[in-house]
């Protein structure tokens, strides 16, 4: 498994006359855990939506490894090994937990649009699904309808679906948002475990989580990057403190 780097070059995004992302260039090294922080409305989620192909970019260039991915539809980007989670839980709510995870595995296992493979007989696929359920600590809930899970369980499922396909680039949008303290601890341990050896980009508001998980932190303010570097450097950065961290400390 070779995790590719993610490169953004001078990316712009406008919604009508309003420019949300104003020339972002960013390098996420292969295999690193990269946190994206910034005040509300800075454009963090928008940037995620651009990388994952949910919205087209206005101008610029986004590459994953050698592949240029801007302009591709989301499913094509996903097939290149980029997988994302959503800030607002996005799961298949009427399918069982087991089915949700298995849906996350289908394409990458090469089933494509098959209407001839009986899923119940696909041993390797089902075993891999079970293994992931164990890893996510959702095995006891395998037959529960996903829409009926507790909030924290749904978040775990969300992360599980994101990593299920074995994508090498993982984008997590506020994975711990709305979680209690113990749930956050559990989620962080989970993220750390399952993203081993993959390139991770995450948007996160919880500074404890950010400083604990991230190898590199990028600070986005009003659609522009004001600082990027290792946690120690960012913590000491005056501009960041004024724009963001200072407000939290006060």
């Amino acid at each position: 498994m070779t995790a590719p780097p993610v490169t953004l070059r001078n990316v712009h995004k406008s919604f009508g006359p309003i420019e949300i992302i104003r020339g972002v260039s960013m390098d996420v090294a292969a295999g690193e855990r990269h946190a994206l922080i910034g005040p509300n409305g800075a454009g963090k989620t928008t940037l995620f939506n651009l990388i994952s192909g949910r919205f087209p970019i206005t101008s610029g260039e986004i590459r994953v490894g050698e592949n240029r991915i801007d302009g591709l539809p989301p499913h094509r980007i996903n097939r290149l090994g980029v997988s994302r989670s959503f800030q607002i839980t996005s799961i298949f709510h009427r399918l069982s937990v087991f089915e949700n995870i298995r849906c996350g595995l289908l394409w990458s296992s090469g089933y494509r649009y098959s209407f001839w493979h009986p899923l119940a007989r696909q041993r390797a696929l089902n075993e891999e699904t079970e293994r992931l359920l164990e890893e996510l600590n959702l095995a006891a809930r395998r037959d529960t309808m996903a829409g009926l899970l507790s909030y924290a369980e749904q978040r775990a499922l969300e992360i599980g679906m994101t990593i299920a396909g074995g994508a090498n680039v993982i984008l997590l949008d506020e994975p711990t948002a709305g979680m209690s303290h113990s749930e956050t601890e559990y989620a962080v341990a989970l993220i750390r475990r399952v993203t081993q050896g993959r390139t991770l980009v995450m948007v996160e508001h919880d500074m404890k989580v950010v400083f604990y998980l991230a190898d590199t932190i990028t600070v986005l303010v009003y659609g522009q990057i004001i600082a990027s570097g290792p946690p120690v450097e960012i913590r000491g950065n005056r501009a960041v403190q004024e724009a963001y961290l200072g407000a939290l400390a006060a």
Partner: protein
Amino acid sequence: MSEKLTSPARAGEVETRSVEGEGDRVGTYAKMLRADPITLTRRYAATSPARRAGEVLLPWLLALAVAVVLPWLFYDFHHARHSGFALSMFSQMGMMIIFALSFNMLMGQAGLLSFCHSVLFGFGGYSTVHFLDSAGAGNLPVPMELMPLLAGFSGLGLAIAVGYVASKQRSTAFAMITLGIVQLVTTAATMFHHFFGGEGGIKTDREIGISLFGLEYAKSIEVYYLIVAWMMIAAIAMYYHTGTPLGRMANACRDNHERAQFVGYDPRMVRFLQFALSGFFAGIGGGLFAITYEIVTFDAVAAPLAANALLMAYIGGATTFVGPVLGAVLITAMQSGVSLMSNSWLIYVGVLFIAMVTFAPAGLTGIVLAHAPIARAGMLRRLLVPYLRMVVPALLVLLGFVGLVELSSFLTIGAAQGKQLALFGHSLAITSTTPWLVSLICLGGGGYWLSREATRFRSVWDDLSAGLRTASAAR
């Protein structure tokens, strides 16, 4: 801080234990929170293969046995002949089961409401008429038994063309496109005489003289068994489809089409393929229609037929595989049976539909499944008395409603046809006040009584469900 973060919370494990506790109340309650029945008709682990094969086969064998035996229950041994009415009704049921199931591949399974499903059915029918003509003239050496397969491919072909356009959109926009298509094709059917034969439709003769089993298909019973065979094949194939990657991704796109994209699937492709396959099965149904009636008119492509499929799927229950089968049987029985007894049968179908959508949007199978958690907890008995108490007022409401509808009907259409309203052999004077008054009192009084009993039932039901919920939340 970092030491704290490395130790994951143990909450998950505690939970695992309590849910696994076999036989305890909480465990029982936890079982009520089961997922979508379409997806859960198959269990994946902890069942031995032998038992699973039996579980899967049994309902199919039962259905086959019922279908095979059914016409013989109406056999007239005195004259040694089949009941024409029963045979034609069961034949109609067979093709409508295929049609409703294929419709539900879109609605229940993919969340797509298609108004042009009749077009795929009808096109299969029209094509089959032409195939039969060719075969009869000796130009198409295809045995009768395989004609429905050709019809299926016709349906598939048209579905590929239509689906290419329709699948560009989903939800309301998809429904609008299909509405446009059905109007377009219905108009075309009355205009292009070569293929569709205009308003009179096209006729054929099914005695083409080519059969794998040397059958003539002169008798309706032979056609009936041909329908049964294809109904079983189509139903099993459609059921099999629900458990394939495409079938599952159709469910996934129905629930959350955006997320499907981020696991690598193009929802448009899923819609397109699902549409094309459903067209294949609808075409088979249409082929059987053409073989049975030997005539196909533009009614077979028109929107009312698609609306029928919607009624069947909805009344039977679109969230389960078997729902549309129930719906097809029920609606066809009403069409054949009740229409003989009453001019106003369409009113009853309409009221039934409105009542179902209002009070039981998950359909008949939904009603049954809603009882499952209570049954699993062994508390079904507590519903028995509240149910029984509703029987009499419900019958009164039914009597009053039917009475009013029939009285009105006989006052207008019936009078024009010179018919007399008769009840238990006594003719009723529809212009006298008594029957109207009795009906009104039945409807009003029964309605009031029923609403009181329904409230009672509701509170018992809510108590039971709340009990189950608290127990499962306390796990």
